[in-house]
C-alpha cells in the first residue's frame, strides 16, 4: 500500500496497526456469543436454585406407589374426596367422576357449573363447593339443594362434613363458614380477633383446606402462616402447629403451605400436600414430622407442566385423601390423574 500523503517511513507501523486491528476484529466477530451459549454471565448471587431442597433422603420415604394411576378423564379436575366404601370422588369440569375402591368407573354425576371442592358424608351425600355457594347431591347424583351465595368475593376451597354441621373455607373472604345440614349459616370462624387470640387467616393464594379431626376439633390450614390450627366448632382457637422452613424437610416450604391435607384413619395423624416443593408428607397428631409419602421427583411431570404455565403456583396444587385401608390418594390436577401410595410394609 502506498500512502496518498505522508512519509513512507511510518508505513511499517501502520501495517502493524492494521494487522492488529484486523486480527482483533476477526476475534471479536468469531467469539460473539449471540445465542447465550455461555449463559447469563451473572454472578452466583443472581442465581436461584432449589435443587438441594428438592432432594429427599430415601430413608424418609415411607410410602411407595402401589396401584396403577387412575386417569380422571376430566379436563380440569379440582378436588378429590373418599366416600363410603372407599369410593373415590373427583370433581372437575362440570361433573363428578366416581370410582370404586378398585378404580372401576361408576356413573358420573353431571353438574351445572364448575365445582371447586367437595366432601362426601357417611351416607353418601355430596357437599359440593361451587365458586360462591354449596350444592348438595344425594348418593344417586340428584341435586337436593343449592345454598345461598356467600357473595362476589367468595372463593370456596374446601368442605368438611360433621354430624350436624358443614364447614366451608372461603379463601376470598379468608374465613371458615359453619352451616347446619339444612344450609342455615350458623357462624363465621377464624376472623381476626385479638381478644380471643385469633390471628385471622392469611390466605395469599386460592388454597385453604380444612377437616374435622377425631378429637372433635376443626383443623384449618393457615397457609400464609404455614400452620395447621385447631378450632372448636364455636370458633375458639385451641392449639396450632407447623413451622416455615424451605431447607428442612420437617417444615412447610415457601410462602403459603400446605395447600391441602387429609387425616389418616385411627387418629394416626396428617397427610399434607405442598406446592413449590411438590411433596406429600406425614405428620403425627401433635404435628411432629413423621416421614414422606412422595417428593418432587415423583411429581416431576407436574412441575414440568406447571413451569410451562408461567403463572407460579396459582393452580395445580395437589389434593390428598386417605381411604380406610390407609392408602394415600393424590390428585394431580395438571396430569389429570390420581396416584395411590401405600405404606412400605417393612416399616409397619
Amino acid at each position, binding site marked *: 500500500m502506498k500512502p496518498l500523503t505522508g512519509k513512507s517511513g511510518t508505513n511499517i507501523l501502520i501495517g502493524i496497526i492494521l494487522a492488529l486491528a484486523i486480527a482483533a476484529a476477526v476475534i471479536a466477530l468469531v467469539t460473539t456469543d449471540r445465542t447465550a451459549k455461555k449463559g447469563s454471565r451473572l454472578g*452466583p448471587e*443472581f442465581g436461584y436454585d432449589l435443587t438441594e431442597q428438592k432432594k429427599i433422603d430415601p430413608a424418609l420415604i415411607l410410602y411407595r406407589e402401589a396401584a396403577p394411576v387412575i386417569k380422571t378423564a376430566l379436563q380440569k379436575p379440582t378436588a378429590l374426596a373418599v366416600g363410603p366404601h372407599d369410593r373415590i370422588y373427583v370433581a372437575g369440569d*362440570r361433573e363428578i367422576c366416581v370410582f370404586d375402591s378398585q378404580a372401576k368407573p361408576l356413573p358420573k354425576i353431571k353438574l351445572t357449573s364448575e365445582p371447586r371442592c367437595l366432601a362426601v358424608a357417611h351416607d353418601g351425600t355430596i357437599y359440593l363447593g361451587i365458586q360462591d355457594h354449596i350444592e348438595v347431591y344425594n348418593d344417586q347424583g340428584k341435586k337436593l339443594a343449592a345454598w345461598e351465595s356467600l357473595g362476589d368475593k367468595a372463593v370456596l376451597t374446601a368442605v368438611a362434613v360433621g354430624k350436624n354441621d358443614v364447614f366451608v373455607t372461603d379463601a376470598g373472604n379468608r374465613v371458615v363458614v359453619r352451616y347446619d345440614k339444612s344450609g342455615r349459616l350458623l357462624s363465621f370462624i377464624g376472623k381476626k380477633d385479638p381478644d380471643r387470640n385469633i390471628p385471622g387467616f392469611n390466605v395469599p393464594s386460592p388454597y385453604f383446606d380444612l377437616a374435622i379431626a377425631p378429637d372433635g376439633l376443626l383443623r384449618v390450614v393457615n397457609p400464609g402462616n404455614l400452620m395447621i390450627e385447631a378450632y372448636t366448632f364455636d370458633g375458639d382457637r385451641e392449639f396450632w402447629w407447623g413451622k416455615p422452613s424451605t*431447607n428442612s424437610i420437617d417444615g412447610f416450604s415457601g410462602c403459603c403451605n400446605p395447600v391441602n391435607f387429609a387425616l389418616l384413619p385411627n387418629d394416626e395423624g396428617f397427610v399434607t400436600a405442598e406446592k413449590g416443593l411438590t411433596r406429600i408428607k406425614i405428620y403425627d397428631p401433635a404435628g411432629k414430622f413423621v416421614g414422606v409419602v412422595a417428593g418432587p421427583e415423583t411429581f416431576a411431570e407436574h412441575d414440568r407442566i406447571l413451569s410451562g404455565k408461567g403463572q407460579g403456583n396459582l393452580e395445580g396444587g395437589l389434593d390428598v385423601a386417605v381411604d380406610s385401608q390407609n392408602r394415600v390418594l393424590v390428585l394431580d390436577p395438571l396430569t389429570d390423574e390420581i396416584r395411590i401410595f401405600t405404606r412400605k410394609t417393612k416399616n409397619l
Partner: protein
Amino acid sequence: MNQKESDINDHAAARPQTCPWYQPAVATAVVAGVFSLIVSVVLVANYLPQRPASRDLPEDATPLESAEIIRMKENLKLNPDDQLRQQIRGLDLQLRRQYFHRRTVTAWGAWLLLGGLAVFFTALKSAAHLRRKLPLPPSKTAPQKTTLTRTRLSVAGLGAILIAAALALAVFSTGDITQNALAPSDEIITAPPYPTPQQIKAQWPGFRGPDGSGRAAYNNIPQSFNTDTGENILWKSPVPSFGHNSPVVWGNRVFLSGGTDKIQQVFCFDADTGALLWQKDVNVARPPNFESPEIYEDTGIAAATMAADGRRAYAIFANGDMVAFDLDGNQIWAKNLGIPDSMYGYAASLAMYQNLLLVQFDQGPDEQDNFQSKLFAFDGATGALVWRTDRPVYDSWTSPIVIDTEKRPQIITNASPWIIAYDPAHGKELWRLECFGSDVAPSPTYAGGLVFAAQPYDQFYALRPDGSGNVTETHIAWTVDDIIPETSSPVGNDQLVFLLDGAGFLGCYDVKTGSKFWEHDMKDMFSSSPSLVGDKLYLFSEDGVMYLLAAAEKYEEISRSHLGERVTSSPAFTDGRLFIRTEKNLFCIGRMP
C-alpha cells in the same frame, strides 16, 4: 496553458504553508488524545471485575465478591451471629454501591470518551487541512496490463478461498445429529397432522365454534361495547368482498371468505391488529363445460363458513369450488365438486374431524327423482377424497356438526326428511330419525347430551344420540312447537336451551324436559345464531344490535350495544375476544388493555 499555471499559483498562494493555527491544532489533538486514552483506560479498568476494597473482610475472601457474600450467608445459617449479620449488610451495601458506581462510571466515561475523540479528530483534521499539500501530478502512471492481471488473479484467489472455506465448513460440520434428526426427508417421523381436542377447544375453528354448538370456551368476553367511544372495540377492518359466512379463528389469524359469481376470495386478518394479512383469489381447475351458476341473491356465493385446523384454512363456495390455503396464503389444493343443485344456493359450512374435512353436499333430486346428496370427507393436507356417503335427502341449508358423545364421535346432519348421524372415521351411518317435512336451514346443535333439530314452522326436536338404525319412534326426548327457529340455530348448555326465531321471539327451555321457563319478544329481527358465553347469551340482530342476556331460568337483559351495521353471520369467540362480521366489516371486540 499559461492561464492554468497561474490558476494553480493563485491557489497555492491562497493557502500559505505555515498557518498560525497549525501549532494550536496539533497541541489540542495531543491533549485530546491523551485525555481519550486516560478515559479509555479507566473504562477498561472499570469493566474488569474488581475486588471489594473492604478492610473488615476475612482474610481468605475470594476475589469474586458475590461468592464471598454467599459464603457469609451460609455461615450465618450455621451460627446466627449479629456481628456476621452486620458484616453481610456492610459488604452488601458496598457491593451494591460498587455495582451502581461502575454503571455510572461507564455512562459518564462513554460521554467523555466521545467528547475527547470528537475534539481529537477535529483537531487532527484541522491540522491536516491547514497543512494540506498542493495536489501534484504523480510521477508515474500505473501500468495497466499487469495491474489488471494481478487483479483478476486476486479476485479468482478470493473466490477460491471462499470455496475452500465452504468446503471446510461442509466437511467439519456434518454431525450424526443432523443426519438423524434433520436430514431424513424420506425417513418420516410424523407429527399428528391434526390438532388435539385441547388445541381445537382453545380456537374457533369453524361455524359456531369447536363443536359447532355456539358455545365459547372462554368467559372473559366483554359484555358490551360502544362504537361511538370505541370502548371495547379492538379493531374494525373492512372485508373486501361480501359473504354471509362467519369468521373462523386459529391462533392470531381470522379467516373469512367472500366473492361474487365471478371471483371467489379468502381473507386472512391478524387477530391482534386487524391487518389484512393476505387476500387470495381462488384458483380452481374446473370441468370443461363448467358455467358459473346463477347465485341466489340472498344466499350469495360465500354463505358457507370456512374451517381451520392450525395448518390450513379451507373454504367452499356455492359454485362447488373448494380450496385449502396454508396459513401464509399459499393455495395448497383446490377442486370443484360440481355445481350443487340447491334451490336457494349452497350454504353448508365445513366441519372437521381430525384430519378430515367434512362437506355436507346436499342437492335436490335429479329428473328421475333420485337423490343426489352426498357427504364427503377429504384429507385436509392433500384434498384427496377419503370417503363418500350417499344421502337419501333433499337439498338443505344446514351445516354438519361433529359431536363427541360418551360412546363415540358422530357427524350429525340435518336435511329433509332425515336427521342422520355418521361415523366420522368411515362415513358409516349410525342412526337416522325422520323429523323434517320441508326445507331445513337451522343446523343441529348438541347440548346437555341431546341433539337438537328444528323443522321451521312445525316442530322442534330434542333427540338422544345413542341409538342405531331408525330411531324415529324411540329416541325423541321431547318436542316443542311454539317458538321454532327458521334460519338461526339453537344454543344450549347442560341446563337450558334457547330458541330464537327470525321475528325475535326467544324461548328458554329446560334441556332435560323441554318445559318452558320463559319466552320474550325481543322486538327485533334475527338471522345470526345465538351463542353462549358462560352463563351469558349473546344475540346479534339483523340491525347490528348485540343483546346480552342472562342464560338463566329468568329473563334478564344485561346490556345492549349497537354495531350500527347489518349482521347476518354468527360471532366467533376466542380468549377475551369476539369477532363479528357485518355487511362490510369485521369487528373485533375485546377488553381494552
